[in-house]
């Protein structure tokens, strides 16, 4: 019986439709109505690239108390359970890279500086990311949120190919779309949980512009005391302790 030979990255990226198809997947992410669709699109993109696994991870400083990590998995989900159990997010060299860089990188080029980082890398390898392409997606300056698209292969040198630029080009667009989709979900989540009104958003925008209560009161034709009172309610809704924290939270969630 003939064994099927797995195509190389070069063979895959040489296909005329490779980049257009990847672009179509990225565009479909923007139209996805829920994360099950996004998971399927992520898996489709990995398959198109000849990869075995993929995940999109995002990070955000939620508020004064919590950091949140969100992972959409098109790979063995046991990886994420083990990742959480070992609190790998605190020592993840891929996330560390994504925090400070915007260029896609091959995972094996990232140094693991501590034993914990080595363990995190080994765990990823165990679950199919033997070699991996990491594609960061940054938020606007001043925000903590970021995303990282991880495309992995069980073959050690799968991505070490001169044609990698084609994949990084398409994967960058995909990572950006995934990040935008995630922010849209977060925005929707916060609007629902905090029951924010248009007046709340107006107040947040004034604070972002650096306006004091008296200035805001003049602008919206009310008293400074009413503005202060509104702020108390708004901070409570958002679960924060100050106007600054409220604005930061609203900005992180893409509300303002």
């Amino acid at each position: 019986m003939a064994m099927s030979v797995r195509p190389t990255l070069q063979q895959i990226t040489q296909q005329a439709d490779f980049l257009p198809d990847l672009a179509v997947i990225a565009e479909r992410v923007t139209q996805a109505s829920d994360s099950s669709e996004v998971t399927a699109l992520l898996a489709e993109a990995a398959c198109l690239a000849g990869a075995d696994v993929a995940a999109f991870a995002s990070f955000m400083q939620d508020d004064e108390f919590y950091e949140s990590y969100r992972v959409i998995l098109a790979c063995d989900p046991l990886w994420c359970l083990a990742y959480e159990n070992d609190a790998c997010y605190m020592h993840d060299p891929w996330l560390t890279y994504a925090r400070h860089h915007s260029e896609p990188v091959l995972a094996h080029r990232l140094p693991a500086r501590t034993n914990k980082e080595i363990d995190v890398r080994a765990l990823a390898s165990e679950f199919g990311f033997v070699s991996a392409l990491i594609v960061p997606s940054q938020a606007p300056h001043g925000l903590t949120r970021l995303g990282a698209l991880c495309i992995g292969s069980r073959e050690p040198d799968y991505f070490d190919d001169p044609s990698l630029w084609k994949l990084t080009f398409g994967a960058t667009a995909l990572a950006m779309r995934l990040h935008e989709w995630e922010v849209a979900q977060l925005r929707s989540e916060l609007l629902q949980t905090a029951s924010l009104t248009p007046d709340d958003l107006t107040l947040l925008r004034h604070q972002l512009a650096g306006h004091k209560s008296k200035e805001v009161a003049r602008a919206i034709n009310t008293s400074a005391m009413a503005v202060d009172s509104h702020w108390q309610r708004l901070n409570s809704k958002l679960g924060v302790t100050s106007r600054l924290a409220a604005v930061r939270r609203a900005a992180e969630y893409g509300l303002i």
Partner: protein
Amino acid sequence: MKKPKPNPTSADANKDGIVLRSDDGRLFYWLRATRAGLWVQRDRWRHDSRARLVQSHVFCSNAAFARWCDADTVRFDYPIVFSKLQREGRALLNGHERPTNAAADHPAG
């Protein structure tokens, strides 16, 4: 001001699906049957590392879902929620599972 309680509400989950939550509000699951299989979002808040980890995945078979459930250590901390998770997940998958997709769990693999 008191430290706010976790109150995650998934925009996804508000559309439809089943929401399971622990009494202490530190563990949430959302389940929904989709065309691809059983979509599960697991949302856990950890005091020790002040972190929230939200993971979502689509299971294509009962076997894959059961394997994932068996590997999750929170089943010891939240046995009631976990029991409901297994029951509801199985029920949703039973309504969906087809012989053609029973062999594979994650589509990329």
